[in-house]
């Protein structure tokens, strides 16, 4: 009963205005995205349809009925796209294609850019701030529901690779940052949480490690500010870099999961790049955040905190720090892998998993609205001095090393198949 009581935070009504704001912001942005997508599809259809019709005629002339049938499906899709906007072949909607395809200005980018602009120009009244703070964690149920996209072979392959990569990157970064921090004369508190934050999962790891290493609130503000600043910069820069370098969807997903330190930001970057990228990023991130309890234990060992009156035993730490929502994610993967008729699958029309597959995006949208509206330039200014230098060095190193690794691994090992 006490656990149930703990679920309801006293004064919970203060979260309602901000949460509603994020919901409205998300719905408006998804609608704009929908319009851009519709007109972009029509623009591409208008240009592509004459070519497809010519190909279809050629294939029919030579008697290739299979080839003609395949082209006919594409023709039907293009004609439907034109019908949706009431257009015809020859019409152009270049403005939509410019924003949506060329500039990749989709719902993720819109929520972040407009959110940051609103927060740092007109501002957000204080009444909305608590609710904006709890909108961000709505990405977690989105991640759980995304479990219907995967089967266990994906987890073993991509997740296995992810676990190895994550372990190497996490402990390598954490050890390096903690060692450099000590050499630079940074306090154990700040060094410990910078090591955890730049190694594992940004803000979650900082919050988990802070009490263990005795970090001061000012240290936490510096560390969180640095992580958020670099997360925000990489979130905007990496999708364009990934396109310029020619990364595949799954390579980008792995790269974002290794280089961006905050779950919400890395999922935003991957979703921005593409759905396949997001699927890979979520799996590798799941491997990474499961290591949070271990990095806390490592911090205890590194700073010699055993026996300082804190119970930092292995199982106590695991119980306290393990991100239990990930169990829901894996449970849905298991159910999807069993192909039970009662649940169906994401491609089985009228089945529960087919219905759930369209819900996660809305939870992500509300979460991204929360991220955009919560990024304040003032918070980022808190990342000053040594913390900034250590954080920037670690962030850039991880970005470069992560890129090298995903280029070497290639696409197939990182691709989520969903059982197909």
């Amino acid at each position, binding site marked *: 009963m*006490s*656990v149930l009581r*703990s*679920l309801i*935070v006293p004064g919970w009504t203060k979260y309602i205005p901000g949460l509603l704001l994020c919901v409205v912001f998300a*719905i408006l942005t*998804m*609608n*704009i995205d*929908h*319009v851009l997508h519709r007109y972009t599809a029509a623009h591409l259809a208008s240009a592509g349809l004459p070519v497809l019709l010519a190909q279809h005629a050629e294939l029919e002339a030579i008697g290739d009925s299979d080839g003609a049938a395949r082209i006919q499906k594409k023709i039907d899709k293009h004609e439907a796209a034109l019908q949706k906007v009431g257009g015809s072949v020859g019409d152009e909607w270049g403005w939509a294609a410019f924003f949506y395809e060329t500039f990749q200005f989709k719902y993720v980018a819109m929520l972040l850019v407009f959110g940051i602009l609103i927060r740092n120009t007109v501002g957000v009244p204080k009444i909305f701030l608590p609710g904006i703070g*709890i909108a961000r*964690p*709505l990405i*977690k*149920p989105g*991640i*759980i*529901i995304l479990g219907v996209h995967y089967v266990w072979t994906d987890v073993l392959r991509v997740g296995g690779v992810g676990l190895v990569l994550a372990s190497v990157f996490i402990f390598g970064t954490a050890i390096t940052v903690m060692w450099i921090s000590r050499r630079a004369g940074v306090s154990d508190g700040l060094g410990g949480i910078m090591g955890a934050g730049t190694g594992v999962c940004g803000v*979650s790891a900082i*919050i*988990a490690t802070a009490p263990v290493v005795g970090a001061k609130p000012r240290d936490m503000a510096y560390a969180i500010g640095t992580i958020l600043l670099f997360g925000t910069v990489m979130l905007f820069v990496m999708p364009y870099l990934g396109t310029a370098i020619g990364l595949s969807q799954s390579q980008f997903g792995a790269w974002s999961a290794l280089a961006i330190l905050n779950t919400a930001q890395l999922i935003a970057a991957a979703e921005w790049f593409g759905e396949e990228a997001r699927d890979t990023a979520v799996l590798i991130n799941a491997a990474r955040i499961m290591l949070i309890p271990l990095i806390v234990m490592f911090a205890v060992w590194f700073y010699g905190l055993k026996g300082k009156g804190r119970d930092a035993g292995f199982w106590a730490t695991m119980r*306290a720090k393990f*991100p*239990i*929502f990930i*169990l*829901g994610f894996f449970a*849905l993967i298991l159910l999807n892998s069993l192909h039970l008729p*009662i*649940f*169906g699958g994401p491609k089985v029309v*009228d*089945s*529960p*998993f*087919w*219905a*759930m597959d*369209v*819900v996660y*995006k*809305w*939870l992500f949208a509300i979460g991204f609205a929360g991220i955009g509206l919560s990024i304040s330039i003032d918070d980022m200014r808190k990342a000053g001095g040594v913390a900034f230098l250590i954080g920037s060095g670690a962030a850039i190193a991880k970005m470069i090393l992560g890129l090298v690794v995903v280029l070497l691994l290639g696409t197939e090992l990182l691709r989520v198949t969903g059982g197909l």
Partner: protein
Amino acid sequence: MESSTNTEPDKGSERKEQGLSSAKREDIWALIIALVVLALAMLAPDAIHSFFEKGLYFL
């Protein structure tokens, strides 16, 4: 001053252990929300799909 009875320090530590951290609270709510979505999807998959795929788009 009389020392407190054995039950007093136990109650105090019990109270500390009963409160959830905000991360744990978020995780449990995430599981609850996902379960609610699963339950609704099992009861009315077509309605759920239609609402989120078409109903929320007004432009």
